[in-house]
């Protein structure tokens, strides 16, 4: 270096090799990784050069990057001399590139000197334009108005999808009524078994326990008035008109709604639905109608079963409290009418239709990708339960108005 006499050192900072984490914790097996150094040289005109030496790789770059950032804001440089670099990987190239486009000390154009030809070549893959392009493509934050608008359009289109779906199901049902051979009765039976018969144990357990719980909760306050016999009235009305249908529907949404959405969603992801369409088979007619029909057949039965199991739970509690069976049954008979049972059963039927319908809709509208199946399963269960409760509220209001 012939200019050596004109150069005086402003600073000489060595980046000591970072020790491994083990070494930092003071454990044995200290391994010092290769290091990179930098040196700032200023000539008599005040122009500064940055001289890099050593091994510039993923291990040494993080520290060097930080140190250089601090140092170069104080002392802007115009030339980077990289001739002393023994080794340079992509991370190091990133640093060299970032330096060379003047990002470390803004406004000053920097020349890179002494680069080996293969490093020079690899540097061509780095581009600040790519970075800016990438930043531009990042989704920008949207204003509240846009968010609200998007949400409204989303709700409207979801409503439209639902109406279209109901129409498709209805037309599918009509077509199948005239062509019963396309009904695939075996499929209906399979679903009836898996969604209905196999649900009996859990429906029994939950209904029985709900009956027991309500009877126990009612027993104490009623005892204060000596009116414990009215537990029978209460359990009868609550189980038959409300909880029987509701518990059945919620269990159906959790057990079978999720299964329907997952089945149809997987078929969508695996392109089985596309295969059906290209074979001229309508997925709604081929898959959805069967599920709806099975649910329409099984929910009334399951609901009635749930009502009676719940009442049985209450009866068991009352027997425990010492009431004779004949008295309990007499009390039940006086409070329950056939129209209550019919009301509960109709509710159960409607709930079953809703659960199966929404689950199939969510399944059919699964997006692509394996995580989409989980998403539509969740949505099927949540929308199912939500719609059940809303419909139940409508039933209650309707009943109130009609019987006034």
């Amino acid at each position: 270096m012939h200019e050596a006499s004109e150069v005086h050192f402003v600073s000489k900072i060595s980046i000591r090799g970072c020790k491994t984490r083990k070494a930092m914790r003071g454990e044995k097996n200290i391994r010092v990784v290769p290091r990179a150094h930098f040196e700032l040289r200023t000539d008599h005109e005040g122009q500064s050069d940055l001289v890099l030496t050593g091994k510039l790789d993923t291990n040494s770059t993080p520290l060097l990057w930080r140190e250089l950032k601090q140092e170069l804001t104080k002392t802007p440089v115009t030339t980077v001399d990289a001739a002393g670099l023994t080794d340079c990987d992509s991370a190091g190239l990133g640093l060299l590139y970032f330096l060379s486009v003047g990002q470390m000390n803004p406004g000053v154009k920097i020349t890179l000197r002494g680069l080996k030809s293969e490093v020079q070549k690899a540097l061509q893959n780095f581009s600040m334009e790519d970075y800016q392009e990438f930043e531009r493509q990042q989704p920008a934050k949207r204003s509240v108005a846009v968010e609200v608008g998007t949400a409204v359009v989303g709700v409207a289109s979801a409503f439209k999808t639902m109406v279209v779906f109901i129409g498709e199901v209805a037309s599918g049902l009509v077509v199948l009524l005239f062509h019963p051979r396309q009904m695939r009765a075996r499929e209906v039976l399979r679903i009836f078994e898996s969604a209905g018969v196999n649900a009996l144990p859990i429906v029994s357990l939950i209904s029985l326990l709900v009956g027991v719980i309500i009877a126990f909760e009612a027993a104490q306050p009623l005892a204060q008035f000596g009116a414990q016999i009215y537990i029978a009235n209460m359990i009868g009305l609550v189980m038959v008109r409300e909880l029987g249908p509701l518990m059945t529907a919620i269990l159906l949404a959790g057990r079978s709604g999720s299964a329907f959405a997952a089945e149809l969603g997987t078929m969508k992801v695996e392109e089985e639905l596309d295969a059906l369409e290209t074979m001229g088979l309508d997925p709604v007619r081929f898959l959805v109608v069967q599920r709806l029909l099975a649910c329409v057949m099984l929910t009334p039965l399951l609901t009635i079963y749930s009502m009676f199991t719940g009442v049985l739970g209450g009866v068991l509690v009352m027997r425990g409290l010492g009431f004779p069976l004949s008295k309990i049954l007499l009390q039940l008979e006086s409070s329950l009418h056939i129209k209550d049972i019919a009301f509960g059963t109709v509710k159960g039927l409607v709930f079953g239709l809703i659960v199966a319908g929404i689950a199939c809709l969510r399944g059919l509208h699964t997006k692509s990708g394996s995580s989409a199946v989980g998403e539509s399963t969740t949505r099927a269960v949540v929308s199912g339960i939500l719609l059940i409760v809303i419909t139940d509220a409508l039933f209650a209001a309707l009943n109130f108005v009609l019987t006034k």
Partner: protein
Amino acid sequence: MSAAPDIIISVRNLKVGYDGHVILQRLNFDVRRGEVFAILGRTGSGKSTLIKNLIGLYKPMEGEVLIEGTNIVTAEGDDRLRLLRRFGVLYQSDALFGSMTVLENVRLPLDAFTRLPQMDKDLVALSKLRLVDLKGSAAKQPAELSGGMHKRAALARAIVTDPGILFLDEPSAGLDPITSAAMDALFKQLARGSGMTLVIVTHELPSIYAIADRVILLDAEKQSIVAEGNPNDLRDHAADPMVRHFFRREAM
């Protein structure tokens, strides 16, 4: 036997299989530094199983796999992590994460293995995306990419840490001949230009003749290696007619 320092992967008496059921055994071979090494065989001959044993995802039933002198079968903790940093893997199904953008996918190994500044990681990831000709797709989701672009994004992720060894499991599966030829050119560039060692599992003979320096041929019935050497030599001069047949028939 070539000089020892040239050998980057050394497989010794390896026996691989599932649940006590042997698929391949008596495997002995070396991969030399900087070469393109291909593992060949028909469907079901255990190629993918072998590569998963080489990269330490499966534990072999017997034997050892030395990568730069360290046995990946027994390596644990920090030793294992250090070993994992030395190689990149392009999986058969690409294995891009659908919940992340392409850039985040490519950057992931840097996030996992280094403590580089964010800017450096982004620049490096973008430079690899440019290398595989995907520079405009950094902010996209993997679902928005075509099959060939998927493969290239996965390749960018595999090489983002500048690994010394690159494992490729059926890299041309599901690609058209032109795209797969372009991928081959890229592999050649990586091997010749950056001195990367490539270990490729494939059954595509055109791409083997184009890029492979040496190959081993696996056979399901013999449960072992039936041929080893340069693909052109094996096609013309292999002693075993079955081997010549394999290299010729599919080359047509």
